[in-house]
């Protein structure tokens, strides 16, 4: 922490030698704590707890933003992600997208101000949601290297803007250190974010490599060019589908999903004049009749002024909402990945032999619509694949080998299955054990689907289980957005989806075993039948041709008798 601005000068004042302080003395130490100072102390909450994670979080925030922006603008994302090693533990990171770009005035706020974003207040499914992401990355970089971030952004109509930004972390305000309009840029529209930070680059689980690969799985419509410090050439994750997912509709909050504090804020900030109007305007699924029902139950007047509703009245209103029967929120606001795309994403990035997917119908937890999707990629232990041809003969086919960097996703047959967790298409890499998805997987009985499973643990197998939750509001257990809170409704839906996909897997494994079994039997026959021929030839002294003919006829008779 070499940067001046994070020192809290007020706190370091020498305190009077007396043991006890007067209120006046204490007042000298009481001052506003800026958000950025808060961050400096609590950076682990935001995913910057160590150097390796800092690199991942920085890239993750930028990539999430790029994908969000592209999708909102209906553009098929083309992303460039580069990691350059500058010093032993210092890296320069570049994330460039072909998104809509950012208008010049907003650039400094987006990147140089914490808690500034467009997604926090919207009830629409998106990757970012706290508005804390990208500026936290800048702040971390600045704290560890003293350097700010360089942003180039161009909108279709505007000129390419280049800004170098720092953050005044005491005031939570951006400071532009360099500013220029570029004569030309290689993209018609898009944004490039470049930053230097203290970090460590590692491969393996929970690495940037892992994140990029999983992102390619959950975003088969995106092309990613990823350059690691170890490689000369970028790895390319080519898109498997061209169509960009529809922009999810925005919805108003559902009354069940609003907590008391939020309700009070909404009452204070509304433009509606009357309570009955407020309820209809600010919430979904509330018409005039429902609004009156709620108000009556709360013992309030329909024409009360929302802005003047006192604490106790808000409490009554809140309780009345919980008691009233209100229909579930619309689910048009959800954008699931889709069964076909999940399969394509998995096929693209895993070298498996079988894929099963399951999508649950949308559901609701605490007033928030959500939808669960599950995908399973399963590789046959041993590797060889058996195929039954039209004539019923079984052939061994060589295993496909190929796509870049496949080794990470599928483990060995005796290892726990890899669980890929996604929230709004964002891979969740850490805190697997504390995640609701994990709980749902371990609580599912995989034995009946053909996988081994130690009691209360992940199933074993060379397989990947993908769980995706699409929601307007994903209930993370912390700000670092790494684990899903285990709400009963969510657990139930995940389990059902796992069961749906699991049944398909089970059927396949059973069939696979049957075929393998049959193959084994047939090879067994092929091995010993010639000896029946030899025995006959020796005893009866028949010719080689006669012997071969007998063996062949017997082979045919046996196959017909068995027929698969």
């Amino acid at each position, binding site marked *: 922490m070499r940067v001046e601005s994070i020192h809290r000068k007020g706190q370091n004042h020498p305190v009077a030698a007396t043991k006890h302080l007067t209120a006046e003395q204490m007042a000298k130490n009481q001052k506003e704590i800026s958000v950025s100072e808060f961050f400096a102390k609590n950076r682990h909450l935001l995913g910057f707890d160590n150097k390796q994670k800092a690199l991942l979080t920085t890239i993750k925030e930028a990539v999430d933003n790029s994908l969000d922006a592209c999708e909102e603008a209906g553009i098929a994302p083309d992303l460039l992600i580069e990691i350059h090693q500058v010093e032993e533990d210092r890296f320069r990171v570049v994330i460039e997208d072909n998104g809509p770009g950012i208008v010049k005035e907003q650039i400094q706020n987006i990147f140089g101000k914490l808690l500034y974003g467009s997604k926090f207040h919207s009830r629409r499914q998106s990757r970012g949601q706290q508005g804390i992401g990208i500026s936290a990355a800048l702040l971390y970089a600045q704290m560890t290297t003293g350097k700010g971030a360089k942003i180039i952004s161009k909108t279709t109509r505007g000129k390419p803007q280049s800004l170098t930004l720092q953050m005044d972390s005491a005031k939570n305000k951006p400071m532009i250190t360099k500013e220029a309009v570029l004569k030309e840029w290689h993209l018609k529209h898009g944004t490039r974010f470049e930053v230097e930070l203290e970090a460590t680059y590692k491969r393996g689980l929970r690495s940037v490599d892992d994140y990029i690969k999983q992102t390619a799985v959950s975003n088969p419509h995106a092309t990613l060019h990823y350059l690691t410090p170890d490689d000369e050439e970028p790895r390319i994750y080519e898109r498997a589908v061209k169509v960009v997912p529809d922009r999810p509709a925005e919805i108003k909050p559902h009354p069940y999903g609003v907590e008391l504090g939020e309700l009070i804020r909404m009452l204070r900030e509304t433009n509606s004049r009357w309570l009955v109007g407020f309820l209809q305007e600010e919430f979904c699924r509330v018409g005039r009749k429902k609004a009156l029902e709620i108000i009556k139950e709360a013992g309030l007047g329909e024409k009360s002024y929302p802005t003047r509703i006192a604490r106790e009245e808000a409490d009554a209103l809140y309780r009345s909402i919980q008691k009233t029967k209100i229909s579930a929120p619309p689910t048009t606001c959800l954008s699931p990945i889709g069964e076909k795309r999940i399969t394509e994403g998995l096929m693209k990035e895993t070298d498996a032999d079988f894929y099963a997917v399951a999508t649950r119908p949308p559901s609701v937890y605490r007033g928030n619509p959500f939808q669960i999707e599950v995908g399973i990629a399963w590789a046959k232990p041993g590797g060889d694949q058996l195929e039954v041809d039209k004539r019923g003969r079984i052939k061994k086919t060589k295993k496909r080998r190929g796509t870049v960097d496949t080794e990470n996703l599928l483990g060995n047959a005796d290892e726990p299955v890899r669980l890929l967790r996604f929230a709004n298409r964002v891979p969740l890499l850490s805190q697997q054990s504390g995640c609701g998805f994990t709980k749902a997987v371990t609580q599912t009985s995989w034995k009946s689907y053909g996988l081994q499973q130690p009691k209360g643990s992940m199933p074993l197998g060379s397989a990947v289980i993908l769980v995706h939750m699409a929601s307007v509001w994903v209930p993370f257990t912390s700000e670092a957005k790494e684990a899903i809170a285990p709400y009963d409704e969510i657990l139930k839906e995940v389990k059902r989806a796992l069961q749906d996909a699991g049944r398909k897997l089970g059927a396949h494994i059973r069939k696979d075993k049957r075929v393998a079994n049959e193959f084994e*039997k047939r090879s*067994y*026959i092929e*091995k*010993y*039948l010639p*000896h*029946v021929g*030899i*025995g*006959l030839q*020796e*005893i*009866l002294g*028949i010719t080689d041709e006669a012997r071969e*003919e*007998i063996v062949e*006829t*017997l082979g*045919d*008779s*046996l196959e017909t*008798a*068995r027929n698969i």
Partner: protein
Amino acid sequence: MAAKKKITKKTAKKKSASKKPRTRKVGEDESNKGKGLKQVALDSIVAVAKMVQKTATGGGLPEMVMPQRNLSNVTYDKKTGYFELGDNYKTRKLDVNSVKTFAQTLRLMSLAQDMVGDADFATKREAYYVSKNWGEAKFNEQRESDSVLDDIEGMFSLKGVTRETLRFVPEEHGGSVVGALTVIDKDPETGDPIRSDCAAMGSGAYTVPSSVDHLGFETTAEFIIAIETGGMFQRLNHHRYWRTANCILVEMGGVPTRATRRFVRRLSEGLKLPVYAFVDCDPYGMCNIYRTLKVGSGASAHINAKFCVPNASYMGVTPQDILDFGLEDATHPLLPVDIKRAKDALKNDPFFQAYPAWKKTLKQMLTMGVRAEQQAFAKWGLNFVIEEYLPVKIKNAKKFLP
């Protein structure tokens, strides 16, 4: 019998060299002569192969039928005198599970065909090693080849063909023999007769070879004692009991081998000699050793006709002997396996079920709850068995258990 005994006594009293006991003779077994059984064996092998060939060419799946070999598939009739094979058969149809054994069966038949033709033989172990040259079809353990040999023998048993006819011989040699018996064997190279005098074996004994149908015999003996243990056999041989009693002693060494059974059978049948079994007084001695000697076993039901001694009788030791000869304090309590064996015999063994005397004996043993070994007589002095027990018992040979 009485007449013979008189002669013996006279001879013993007068010690006259001129009065020789009557000599009886028997030659090579009929079945072993000429081409008869060999040809049947060769024909049977070809017949099986032809059947397989015909079924296969006709687009069918061939099957081999063989009798089931266990105690539940035998019947016992006192008149026939041995366990007879019942009507249960197992069918080995060519399929995935049987293809290996099927191939191995044919290949072992082919080996038998060669051996019968060339008058060579293979021990069961050698047959197992021959298969090592068959590549994939080789046997992994001798247990497997033994079992296939038994199957082949089972298939052919209805025609009287045995494993020995097919020229497969067991490793283990037969029991030991001493006494007033001359065995006439043949030199395998020259065909010349070779005479072995079982009274001229010194402290050793004549050993029963693995196949015995080609042997001829000459004897002056009056009966045969088949003895369970080597220890008792040695004692009786050492004191030349066979000379005193004018008999033949055969050591079985536990359950008698096929060759020993066939040997005793040929002696008893060809020379018309009674056979007295002398074994431990325990369920194993009665239900396994004696029963197998007399009527054969369930597992070898297909060959019992030749490989047992229907006119054997049980001399002892009986539970009643324990009481009559004061052996009570020289006994051991029956073990749970003993009790189970005796109860199984009462419940499932057609032989014991056929004789009330045997049922009574087994029940008596169970009630007494004890067993006694042959050697227990040593309690009364080492040669009590020679001086007291055997003479007393043999005097009442008609009362022996059937």
